[in-house]
């Protein structure tokens, strides 16, 4: 093991990222190499100072409320418990909601068609509340309509022929909701982050 290898392992040992074999080889090298002992000590010093310097970040009061205000302003969070659904609904809930709404429309259209030429089977289906059908279709609607805001779906289903403007917009924007913007716009390649003027040095 040369000095460069041993110091890489010495650095990794500080992070707890070494094997027992590496530790033994490192210790054997350090025992006979004064330069590496000094370097090992210097690296530990750096680490101790670094951790001590930023260990407990201070957070200004109001940080959380400011953030959550921004999140609410962008409608990125579900509404607080006890609140009625207010548009816009969080995007990932809209897909199953629309699926439920679409199914309800289909069922209602089918029911109207059935009313024109009733059969025993179709008459029986008329007695099934639409909400019951939906609760089977979308697990989101089951038992937690108030909390999850899926009252909107039930409303869409009950009044499929009279969608509220908000509900219509949810359905109209589904393609957007299924393809949310990428979360990052920074380049993945770290080299791109290097200062161009400095990149040619070394």
């Amino acid at each position, binding site marked *: 093991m040369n000095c460069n290898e041993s110091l890489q392992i010495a*650095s990794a040992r500080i992070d707890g990222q070494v094997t027992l074999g590496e530790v033994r080889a490192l210790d054997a090298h350090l025992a006979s190499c004064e330069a590496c002992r000094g370097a090992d000590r210097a*690296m530990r*010093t750096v680490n101790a100072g670094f951790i001590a310097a930023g260990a407990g*970040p201070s*957070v200004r009061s109001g940080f959380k409320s400011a953030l959550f205000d921004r999140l609410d302003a962008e409608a990125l969070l579900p509404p607080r*418990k006890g609140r009625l659904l207010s548009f816009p609904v969080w995007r990932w809930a809209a897909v199953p909601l629309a699926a439920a709404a679409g199914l309800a429309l289909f069922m209602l259209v089918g029911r109207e068609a059935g009313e024109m030429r009733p059969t025993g089977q179709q008459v029986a289906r008329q007695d099934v509340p639409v909400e019951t059908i939906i609760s089977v279709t979308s697990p989101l609607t089951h038992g937690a309509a108030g909390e999850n805001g899926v009252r909107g779906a039930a409303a869409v289903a009950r009044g499929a022929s009279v969608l509220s403007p908000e509900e219509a917009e949810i359905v109209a924007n589904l393609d957007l909701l299924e393809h949310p913007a990428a979360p990052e716009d*920074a380049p993945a390649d770290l080299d791109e982050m*290097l200062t161009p*003027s400095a990149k040619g040095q*070394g």
Partner: protein
Amino acid sequence: MTDEELMAAFRGGDRDAFEALFDRHHLKVIRFAARMTGDPGRGEEAAQEIFLRIARAAATWEPTARFTTWMYTIARRTTLNLIRDGREAGTAVPIPPGEEDGDGFPLHLSGPPALEPDRIVSNNQLRERLEVALGELAEGYRSAFVLAAGEGLSYLEVAEILEITPQAVKSRVFRAREMLASLLSEVAP
């Protein structure tokens, strides 16, 4: 509940789950951003953006992915955007060509005997100098070092976040320590 369970609950419409994730991780995110920017104020500014992006991107999170890996990936990229937007040209030290091979240049790491761990921890001037020195590292080194040494992530997890190999992480963290030690030894009493 695990982070992943909370994330799934949030995606299922549970506001409290997001708040729990925030409570659990916001100090880490602020600390990470502050260390990356070298400025606690900007760290908070970055942390706000990071949590906004986490909420915006919740639909893209893969339930099989570890939440913290995903969170730090967003945190790093958001922070680098802020750094890039406000950076003065020429302050970053580059990663030398071939450096990632791990067998690059000779070591100059001995430092003065006075540079003992206990001493630096109790020496405000040295700590401030350390923060400045960190800002002089190339982002590639700084990200690896802050994530591994500062946040205690495994080299494997850091590799995933930085999209490099674990060996490259090991090399970058080592070089970061080496450069920081070298910069500190210049000011040590």
